[in-house]
């Protein structure tokens, strides 16, 4: 879902660029609380893993493919602030070296994928954990739900950008409906990949999964 240059006009792209800078500045400041000797390498590796899996487009419907966005996966593995930075690193490498996503559109893409997708994932994940049994098995499922919801919402953020500054002639409502419905399907793929990855990591090194570590800390405090 990388927006190329040209889809959205320059004033709108620049405005979202400013929002992206502001969001990244907050993430840079707050990520310090999530990162230590063990989690800093994990955050870097999460970026690497997302870059790799974003290359793996899977078919979703006739003539359409999708790929992992990674916002939910990163949020669960390293926490929302480091997650946002990890996705931004991926988007930067892709836009600068692989011509994937436009340069003037980088702010739009950071807004949709590093900020909106991560924020939605975080909120849904925290809520899902609250209503589910407090055990390790709930984490991959909560992660999958967060992934599933984050993708169409992130796609809707594009529709919003299109409504404000789209250069095409199609009505914004049509673009919104098409983006939302297509990305529900892609969200299912996102949910599956996120669930499998989180399951695999939590079963080998549960201490490296931020979303579970937080839970364990709370449970231990309650026991005391």
């Amino acid at each position: 879902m990388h927006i190329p240059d040209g889809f959205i006009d320059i004033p709108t792209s620049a405005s979202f660029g400013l929002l992206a800078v502001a969001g990244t500045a907050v993430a840079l400041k707050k990520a310090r609380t999530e990162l230590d000797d063990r989690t800093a390498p994990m955050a870097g590796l999460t970026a690497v893993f997302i870059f790799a899996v974003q290359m793996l487009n899977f078919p979703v419907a006739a003539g359409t493919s999708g790929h992992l966005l990674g916002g939910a996966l990163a949020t669960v593995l390293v926490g929302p602030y480091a997650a946002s930075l990890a996705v931004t690193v991926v988007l930067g490498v892709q836009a600068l070296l692989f011509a994937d996503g436009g340069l003037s559109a980088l702010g739009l893409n950071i807004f949709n994928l590093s900020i909106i997708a991560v924020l939605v994932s975080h909120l849904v994940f925290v809520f899902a954990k609250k209503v589910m049994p407090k055990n390790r098995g709930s984490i991959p499922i909560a992660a999958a739900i967060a992934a599933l919801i984050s993708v169409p919402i992130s796609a809707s953020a594009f529709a919003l950008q299109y409504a404000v500054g789209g250069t095409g002639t199609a009505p914004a409502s049509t673009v919104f409906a098409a983006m939302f419905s297509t990305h529900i399907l892609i969200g299912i793929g996102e949910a599956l990949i996120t669930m499998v990855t989180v399951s695999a990591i939590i079963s080998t090194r549960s201490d490296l999964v931020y979303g579970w570590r937080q839970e364990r800390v709370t449970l231990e405090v309650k026991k005391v």
Partner: protein
Amino acid sequence: MSENQSSLKKFYFGFFIAAAFLAGGVSYYASSHPDGLEKVAEDKGFLETAKDSAVANSPLADYGVAGLDNERLSVGLSGLIGVAITALVGVLLFNLLKKKS
């Protein structure tokens, strides 16, 4: 503690190898259909408003290595280069940010 450290390193290494394997090997089998946004742009008639990126001539543009004709090699190698660069940038950034122990 040292045993924990070595198992930690093993895990990091495994995670990295998994990513390298996906980007370097599996990526060749990825679907080449347009992604969700591209398909919507095509269907709703605004695909032609896209402009070439300023780095469209990058030697790695569109996940291939310029001059490599073998498709499998080209996409795989571009993936491995991407993995290496992302790792470099990621490790540098997150190491700078982490709390000093």
